[in-house]
């Protein structure tokens, strides 16, 4: 970031922040794609982005089970021009070195904490780090590469991160940073689907995981400017219907608590989430005053 302030950026210069899912519980359970295969595809993809434009910048953030961290930043990669140590470029060896250190740290932290019910990775933390990095780039001056976030995730969504993830999505939307996502897990990720939908990114769930590299280069390699001229896969539709809190069924229309926004499929006298007492749904005058009453009789 500091090395290129004098260069003129055109609209096709990209800053790609790659969020790498390093959740060990997912990868050891994954049968269709091994972690080393996954890494091969991703490393080749990172390299090709850097080759597309010499001003392009790639930042890789690992999102583990217990923590997340920056593991690669092409702008501060001093040894980029250095010699290759035998069989692979310094880019790869640096990244792998950092990744290994990260795994050790992640494991150590895991021993101190209790395990969660769902083995999700820390997507919210990684998203926040990516957005912080992008904010820093925005403030570095009027000339900066066009940033976007690419989530390479496979772990299931962590429900406890819901609010944090949604907040990250909305702040990405506000700063006009698209979140692309490539989900390699078994089921679709509702978090990533919504993230890409809200921020006008692309969501792809590859059918052939052994061709992951092809998916990545075809869909996610183009810069944001060129994207407007290209037909990219669009999801058939994102299901935004909510589930009610009482029976967990998907509903088209329902009742919403005016205090905590809990959703119900039929009328309740009292909100089961926050305890607000509702008035009669029919009479207009009494309901408005009653709905405001949020203090429960405890």
């Amino acid at each position: 970031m500091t090395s290129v302030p004098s260069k003129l950026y055109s609209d096709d210069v990209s800053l790609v922040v790659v969020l790498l899912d390093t959740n060990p519980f997912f990868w050891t359970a994954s049968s269709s794609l091994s972690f080393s295969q996954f890494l091969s595809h991703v490393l080749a993809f990172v390299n090709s982005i850097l080759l597309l434009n010499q001003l392009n910048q790639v930042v890789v953030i690992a999102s583990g089970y217990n923590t997340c961290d920056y593991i690669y930043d092409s702008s501060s990669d001093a040894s980029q021009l250095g010699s290759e140590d035998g069989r692979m470029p310094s880019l790869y060896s640096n990244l792998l070195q950092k990744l290994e250190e990260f795994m050790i740290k992640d494991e150590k932290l895991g021993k101190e904490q209790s395990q969660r019910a769902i083995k999700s990775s820390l997507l919210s933390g990684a998203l926040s780090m990516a957005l912080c990095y992008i904010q820093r780039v925005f403030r570095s001056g009027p000339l900066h590469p066009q940033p976007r976030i690419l989530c390479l995730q496979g772990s299931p969504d962590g429900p406890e991160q819901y609010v944090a993830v949604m907040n990250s999505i909305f702040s990405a939307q506000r700063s006009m940073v698209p979140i692309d996502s490539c989900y390699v897990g078994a089921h679709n990720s509702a978090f990533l689907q919504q993230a890409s939908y809200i921020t006008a990114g692309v969501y792809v769930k590859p059918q052939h995981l052994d061709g992951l590299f092809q998916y990545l280069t075809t869909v996610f390699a183009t810069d944001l400017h060129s994207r407007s001229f290209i037909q990219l896969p669009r999801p058939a539709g994102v299901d935004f219907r909510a589930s009610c809190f009482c029976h967990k069924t998907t509903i088209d229309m329902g009742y919403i608590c005016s205090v905590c926004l809990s959703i119900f499929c039929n009328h309740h006298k009292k909100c089961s989430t926050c305890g607000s007492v509702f008035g009669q749904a029919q009479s207009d005058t009494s309901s408005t005053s009653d709905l405001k009453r949020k203090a429960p009789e405890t």
Partner: protein
Amino acid sequence: MASGQVSKRVKFKSSVKDPGTPGRLFLTLERLMFKPNSPNSATKLNMEFRFVKNHKYTKEGSNKAPMLNLTSSQGVSYIFEFESYDDLHVCKECVGKALSKTGETPKPIDTSEVPSEQPSTEELLLRMNMLRENSELQNLHKRFVSDGILTEAEFWATRKKLLGGNFSKKSKQRTGLKSFTNKVTFTLTPEIVREVFAEKPAVHRAYLDLVPKKMSERDFWSKYCRAEYLQHAKNANAAAAAAAEAAEDEELALFLKPDDILASETRRKIRCVDPTLNMEADEGDDYTHLPDHGIVRDGSKEITESQHELYIRTLSQELNRHAAVVLQGTPIDEEQLKDTQTVAEALKQSKQGQNASNEETDMNANQDRLSRISKMMEIDDLQASSDLPLAPLSIKDPRDYFDSQQATALKNSRDTSIGTDPVKRILSAEESYASLRDSISHIKTTGLVDPIITPEVAVKVLSVLTHNISSTNYDTGKNHGLTVLDTLPNTIKEELLYHWTSLQELLKHYWSSYPITTTYLYTKVSRLKDAMSKIDSQLQELKESVQSDLRHQVTLLLRPMQQTRPFVQALEAAMQHYDAELQKRSARSGDRSNGYT
């Protein structure tokens, strides 16, 4: 010049692109004459200056040829290209004098006789061009204007936009330019002077210092105005010019430089700002990194990176300063507004009083600041809990909801995956981490998978992706198939479309004449109504003329409520409105006649 006559070698042009006729231009205070060099040439000109309405000339330094453009009161422009800028300047002065002279004399009567609606030759040319380029428009024009259904003016009135921005711009400019001379006039009254002194303390100080010891009042203000003029020229060149002039003239520089009294006052004010407010932290918290944001002035973003930044005052600075003075609001004594000298003195006295109090407050300000910092920087954790009566909000752990949601999803996934890979399921955390580290070191030793992707897989992926995209395209594009219109033979289709455009044109005029306020509009509406009913009968004829199998299609097309072409619907609506209006009208006139008789 002394004799009042100027003669220069010029080229006379009717438009800028015209190569021009070489000849001589003679200018007196009353009239201008052009005589071509070749006696055969028909281009001659001899007109009085009172017919000249406006004059323009090319600026020196622009890469255009030196040209003078005189516009007559009829809107015709006469362009003279000179051999040099010196010639242009001489003639410019002469024209300026002549025009200001005629401006003083009462306007000749014949200018008022020209009707305002009369289009200029320029506009007529434009109209002709439009008709030539747009055959559809030509058809409409032929059909309605030649038949007398619409007048020429009516027809073009609805197409003002088509006639292009350049024309309307030009006419706007003509009304905007009132002065005939090239002078810039500044008017200063004691009231304005007072405002200037209040907003620009440095000018006030300079006035007290310089007038009348060093320079006369008149010199002082002309210098000030010169500085203002330089400052208001907004481009970078002007800033450079300002910088250059300031370097030569000490007093002028005083006005051009940023106001140091103001700056010190601002610094004093900044010291009083809430110490906990961190303005730097919020600096990037805006949308300025996004395109199309930022202050736009005169249609262009302000660029402050000029090296003469010192001499550029921004609009926001001026606005803020003015607002500050207005808010300060010192009372104006009528006595003070006698002349500038008293204004200056009075302001000085009021300022002195203010300064004294300012110094006093400055002494206290530091003390205040310190106590305020200690008050503002209270650390929440160290404070005693404030025991306000609060009703606790009982909110269930939101995790419950999502956990239960996820549990069902997880159960499903386990059901599907457990059969395929039972061994990997039971790995503990340690083993998982170990296996992941193994794969990393595996890559480290053996390198990336080579090849990363086999050609077969790549082709498969590519075809899957493109198939997805093309199939969604097909789905969305399906609705734009053939319309009913496309199934009809070409002649009928064209005729229908022709009727459609004509009808559109008529309806546009028809509805624009409502409400009917004048008899002129009334006759226009009835004229239009007749034309429309004619089209209606033509459509009926068309319907009858086509073959029976197509007739149904055409009927469909003409029938109201058809989504493709609601011909008749639009027509009927207009007709109904007309009838209703007619009834109302007759009823009203009936009432009135009853009332009067």
